[in-house]
């Protein structure tokens, strides 16, 4: 649809703008920015065809740092704006970036409908379990008990869970990544990009200023191996140092358990194979929060179906509208002549 200039291979730096990046030093957002720039370079994205849309928040400053088209909209509404962009031009490659507040507090309704409608975008939710930009109030994903300026006695709400929410919303691609293992994140982002329809990726992100270490128990180097499991479709779900651990169903129950190969008679064959099209398993993987079970990383669920924008584009087709055609329309039906 849009003509593109002759392809020349672009590197990650070709996707960086001249604007100074203004996150706090040490913020996890830096690594994610790098990861996204690398991903775009790797997939050979064309800057003129790529659009980043965000709401408001620290995470939402993202578009300013991407040398593509970018729209920093209003708090919570990125998904709605993006839907309009895709309806207007389904050929654009559209990435949405939002914080946990942006996406799951004020903006959760638009996210819900974007996922349900299956609009062909990549939605990256930077979850730092805090409102960063407004200086550290608890967010819908903050853990119960978290003390913040707006919850001096500890937050008293059951937190929202991004992945179960997305599954409940009917999302057809659901994945998780983190701000530390950038290579793995980049692989996940490539999968998200390749998926036609709404791809939802939760990215665990450290806010060094207001919620430092929120994911330490999952992301810290010494804990990561045991606390995370990296899913790969068609592969056994193994984790831990030397991949000695794995997931299986508790015998006779609809519950996962972590087992160690070689212990208690557990063999490699007992370990479940990851089938990313299995919605029930996706729900179980999404519910894993530690400490007994590792946190699922990578593509948890992927079961494509028709994308909304594409379906509409198909129905719209090429219409060749014209003033003449419109003249015919307004002259059709019951008319009469005077004089």
């Amino acid at each position, binding site marked *: 649809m849009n003509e593109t200039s002759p392809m020349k291979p672009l590197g990650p730096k070709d996707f960086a703008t001249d604007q100074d990046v203004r996150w706090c030093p040490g913020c996890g957002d830096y690594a994610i920015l790098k990861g996204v720039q690398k991903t775009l370079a790797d997939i050979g994205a064309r800057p003129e065809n790529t659009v980043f*849309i965000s709401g408001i928040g620290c995470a939402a400053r993202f578009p300013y740092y991407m040398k593509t*088209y970018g729209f920093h909209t209003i708090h919570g509404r990125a998904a709605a704006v993006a839907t309009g962009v895709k309806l207007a031009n389904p050929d654009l490659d559209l990435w949405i970036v939002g914080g946990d507040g942006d996406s799951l507090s004020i903006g959760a309704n638009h996210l819900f409908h974007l996922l349900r409608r299956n609009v062909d975008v990549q939605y990256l939710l930077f979850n730092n379990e805090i409102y960063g930009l407004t200086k550290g109030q608890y967010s819908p994903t903050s853990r119960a008990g978290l003390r913040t300026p707006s919850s001096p006695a500890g937050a008293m709400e059951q937190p929202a869970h991004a992945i179960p929410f997305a599954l409940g919303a009917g999302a057809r691609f659901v994945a998780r990544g983190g701000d530390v293992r950038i290579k793995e994140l980049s692989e996940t982002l490539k999968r998200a990009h390749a998926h036609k329809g709404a791809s939802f990726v939760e990215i665990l992100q450290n806010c060094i200023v207001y919620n430092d270490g929120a994911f330490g128990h999952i992301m810290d180097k010494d804990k990561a191996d045991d606390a995370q499991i990296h899913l790969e479709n068609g592969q056994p779900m193994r984790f831990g140092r030397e991949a000695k651990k794995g997931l299986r169903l508790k015998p006779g129950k609809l519950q996962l358990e972590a087992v160690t190969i070689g212990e208690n008679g557990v063999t490699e064959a007992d370990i479940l194979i990851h089938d990313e099209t299995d919605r029930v398993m996706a729900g179980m993987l999404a519910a894993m929060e530690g400490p007994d079970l590792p946190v699922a990383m990578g593509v948890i669920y992927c079961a494509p179906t028709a994308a909304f924008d594409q379906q509409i584009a198909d129905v719209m087709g090429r219409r060749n509208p014209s003033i003449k055609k419109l003249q015919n329309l307004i002259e059709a039906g019951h008319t009469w002549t005077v004089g």
Partner: protein
Amino acid sequence: MDGSSNTVPNPDHSDALESAVVRFAGDSGDGMQLTGGQFTLATAVAGNDLATFPDFPAEIRAPVGTTYGVSAFQIHFGARKIRTIGDMVDVLVVMNPAALITNLNDLRRGGLIIADAGSFTDRNLRKAGYEANPLEDGSLDAYRIIPLDIQKLTQDAVADCNISNKEALRTKNLWSLGLVLWMFERDTGTTLRWLEEKFAGKADILAANKAALKAGHAFGETAEISAELPLYHVPPADIPPGLYRNITGAEALAWGLTAGCRMADLGMTFCSYPITPASQLLHVLSKMRDHDVLTFQAEDEIAAACAAIGASYAGKMGVTSSSGPGIALKTEALGLAIATELPLVVVNAQRGGPSTGLPTKTEQSDLFQAVFGRNSDAPMPVLAARTASDCFDVAIEAVRLATKYMTPVMLLTDGYLQNASEPWRIPDLEKDYEHFAKERIVTEVTDFHPYDRDGETLARPWAVPGTPGLMHRIGGIERADVTGNISYDPDNHQKMTDFRRNKILGIADDIAPQEICRGPEQGVLAILGWGSTFGPIHRAVGNMNETGLAVSHIHLRHIWPLPANLADILDRFDHVLIPEMNDGQLFKFLRAELLLEATSLRKVTGKPFKVHEIETAAAALLEGSDDE
């Protein structure tokens, strides 16, 4: 007085009426809207000018026979230009007691009631709140009543048709229509043709409907009571030659927006969330895919506004619509459109408020919201349509301004305009309109900057994603002049505020100067209106001019910015009367803008002005000024 006064035979043509007002009223299930629509068509074909107004119940379908389930359709037609739906009804057709009790107030004294006496059962009388049968107890002595057992007459008429009794009863509206067509000397041809289309393939139903219609018509001519039945002659009006059709405001808006897009060579992305009385626009546009109109029913009004902004960002004409409460929800998003200077058309079909208010009733009380209702200094143009067919032209103007000035534009219509219909001389889209510039999207710019403004319009360039070389970033945080990068610089903020204000103010020089649409160019009294008060004001001024009173009618299309010459024009009058279906919003707004000392005439009942209400207020001012 409009309508009622003129059914008194016109002195010049003693056998002819200048205009008449007929209202059909019955239960929601009685098919009154259909009856009205068919009568309208026959009347238009007979060469009358006309205006119609359907009055639906707020309940979807209330229990049969209750007052809140009454549905009515009014038509005002005549031998002259018809401006209003008529103050008072001349002929009231009622299908049950509830229809009578809810509509009687609007019947002029001496007016005619045709009542389906068969439905005036004890049960129905009770449901309507009557203690005795008004057709019999003398309480209607001030009117002429013709009670007919229409149910029975209809059943008899279709007795030979192969249909159930329920189906038979359903045709009683056609019987009534036949009768009224006869009374006004219209024939049944148009309706018969329409029935044939509608019931093609359902031979039995078709036959019954035709039979009922013909029976009603025949009844007028042959029935024994025909002596009691008045026969009205309303000769054709003297209206400009051309091809005509009936059009509602919602249709005119839909087609006008599409025409504007065609002139700008832009696809339209229309994003909306249903709400009365705006939904009609969504419905009409949903069927216009062939004209590059894509409709999106969003999850709420905020999403609708945001999606429309997204569509404009991506190079389409983004349009969103709602009614007052929904427009309120869009407020924050409109700020974004103003800040990012993207084209957008926002249609507000106003209704009674505050809050949910009176969803099915009309009001024009969102002027303040349109002009002032946003946080911060956030100017945007505001236009208002005056009649159903005017919606077409105003919609084109909205698209023109939005794309030329890179700005959201608010277009005000209201519940009355949305539903009311009137004959529309179908324009020649190629010849009748000055075509404005094709799409303003830039594709090749050397040294491109997203906030580099056009020297004349102050509009920024419209560069859309997908265009090589023009990648840029915009957003709601204050943008640096020219580059559009985030800027917290104090002087830049002042500069950008000035740009935003001046860009919109500059539109005043790009719109048609204000005209006086009826009456002398200067004098004692001008009646200044906006929106759907056009009809009653215009008729009132016409009536007063005819009796030799020097009164003028000025009607605003552009609420913001105001036409540059408005102050000069108003200066020429001793008094300015501002009738509004709100608590005095234009009145106050013009005080602020022009320091105008005017008189406010307010009506907040959910109903349009009656012509005599305006005449009375005008007369009071004229008398007052005699005293001086």
